[in-house]
């Protein structure tokens, strides 16, 4: 097998991996800060500036600069949809293109197939590299490099690492890389002073959708990990709040380890609660939510956000690989 580089055929012992990453900030392949509601998608150089592409007969290795797609307000990137991203050699110009929208949050429209170990488009497809610019990408000729998700606004995607706010500041991780993935941590803190709860029904922490992280995985290869630390004040020995973690739900506790610190000897007290989740929620869009419930319903349990104190902050932590 042979490959070409910059138009000159050379022999490589091993086909290199693509060296860039999908990102929402130019020249910033690893986002360590928010890039909220962005309308330009970049393929930024990271480990190197070369990509392997298949022309239908041979693999070629191409040297590239940063690539991008301007998506602003274009209905071609419909709101609340997932899009796979590919690199493609368009008659000598390497382009970053997207395929068709997934058919649902968790099912892709155009299937992928491995060619010599690399994910490519299984069948000929339309690749879009502008609001009015498309190109036909022959089978296997698009190298799959990741998946993005649009927000409620067409042509817009986002990267938000959460934070501290009343009712929680949610994390939104809408860019996933097939190559050169890095670990991402998101911390969501609800600085509401306190709240009460008096029900055995599992609900979102502080009954808020802000206490969650929503993320996108283009392949189901990496686990996610979440940890929820809470503090409750039981008014009686039978009223203990339990802090858990919901995976794609807020009405169930999917934590694999969780504690309630129930006591039959202490009539009332302050209890710290920790719960953990680790697992593979699957392909596509998912959310991990902090949840809570009580073991009894005789009296209200008080739960602390920050208790109005500089010495307390409960919260929720998520880590994944994107």
């Amino acid at each position, binding site marked *: 097998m042979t490959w070409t580089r910059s138009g000159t055929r050379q022999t490589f012992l091993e086909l290199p991996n693509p060296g860039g990453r999908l990102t929402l900030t130019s020249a910033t392949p690893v986002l360590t800060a928010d890039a909220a509601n962005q309308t330009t998608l970049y393929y930024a150089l990271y480990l190197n500036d070369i990509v392997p592409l298949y022309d239908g007969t041979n693999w070629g290795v191409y040297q590239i600069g940063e690539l991008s797609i301007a998506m602003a307000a274009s209905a071609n990137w419909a709101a609340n949809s997932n899009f796979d991203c590919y690199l493609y050699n368009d008659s000598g110009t390497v382009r970053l293109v997207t395929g068709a929208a997934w058919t649902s949050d968790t099912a892709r429209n155009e299937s992928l197939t491995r060619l010599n170990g690399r994910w490519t488009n299984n069948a000929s497809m339309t690749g879009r590299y502008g609001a009015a610019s498309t190109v036909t990408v022959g089978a296997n000729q698009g190298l799959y490099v990741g998946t993005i998700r649009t927000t409620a606004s067409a042509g817009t995607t986002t990267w938000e690492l959460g934070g501290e706010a009343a009712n929680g500041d949610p994390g939104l991780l809408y860019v996933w890389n097939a190559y050169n993935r890095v670990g991402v941590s998101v911390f969501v803190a609800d600085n509401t002073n*306190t709240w*009460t*709860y008096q*029900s055995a029904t599992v609900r979102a922490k502080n009954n808020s959708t802000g206490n969650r992280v929503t993320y996108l995985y283009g392949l189901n290869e990496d686990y996610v990990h979440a940890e929820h630390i809470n503090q409750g004040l039981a008014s009686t020995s039978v009223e203990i709040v339990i802090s858990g973690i919901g995976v794609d739900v807020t009405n169930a506790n999917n934590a694999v380890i969780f504690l309630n610190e129930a006591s039959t000897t202490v009539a009332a007290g302050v209890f710290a609660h920790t719960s953990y989740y680790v697992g593979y929620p699957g392909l596509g869009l998912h959310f991990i939510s902090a949840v809570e419930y009580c073991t009894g319903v005789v009296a*209200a349990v008080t739960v602390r*956000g920050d208790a109005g104190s500089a010495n307390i902050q409960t919260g929720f932590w998520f880590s994944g690989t994107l």
Partner: protein
Amino acid sequence: MITVLHDRLALVAPIDGVSVAVENDKSGWRVDFKPEATPAQRAAAQAVVDAFDVAAAEQKLKDAEQAEKDKRTSLLSQPNKSITVQDLIDLGLL
């Protein structure tokens, strides 16, 4: 304070709980009603929130805590008193 508010709200409407972002800013307070709460009950709960005096509620809690401490002090200052089950409960030992 929030438990006092919860209890007062529960008297007028079916609730799951109440959330207080900051005590001195009622715009950040939220009552989580049970689904069966009627519009009239929700309105009554809002009236409770509007009328709720944080300082008075905290003073009431402090007074209750002081009364509890006084009761314990009184029991512990009577070394020759026969201890009853109620005394042990009052001391928080049962």
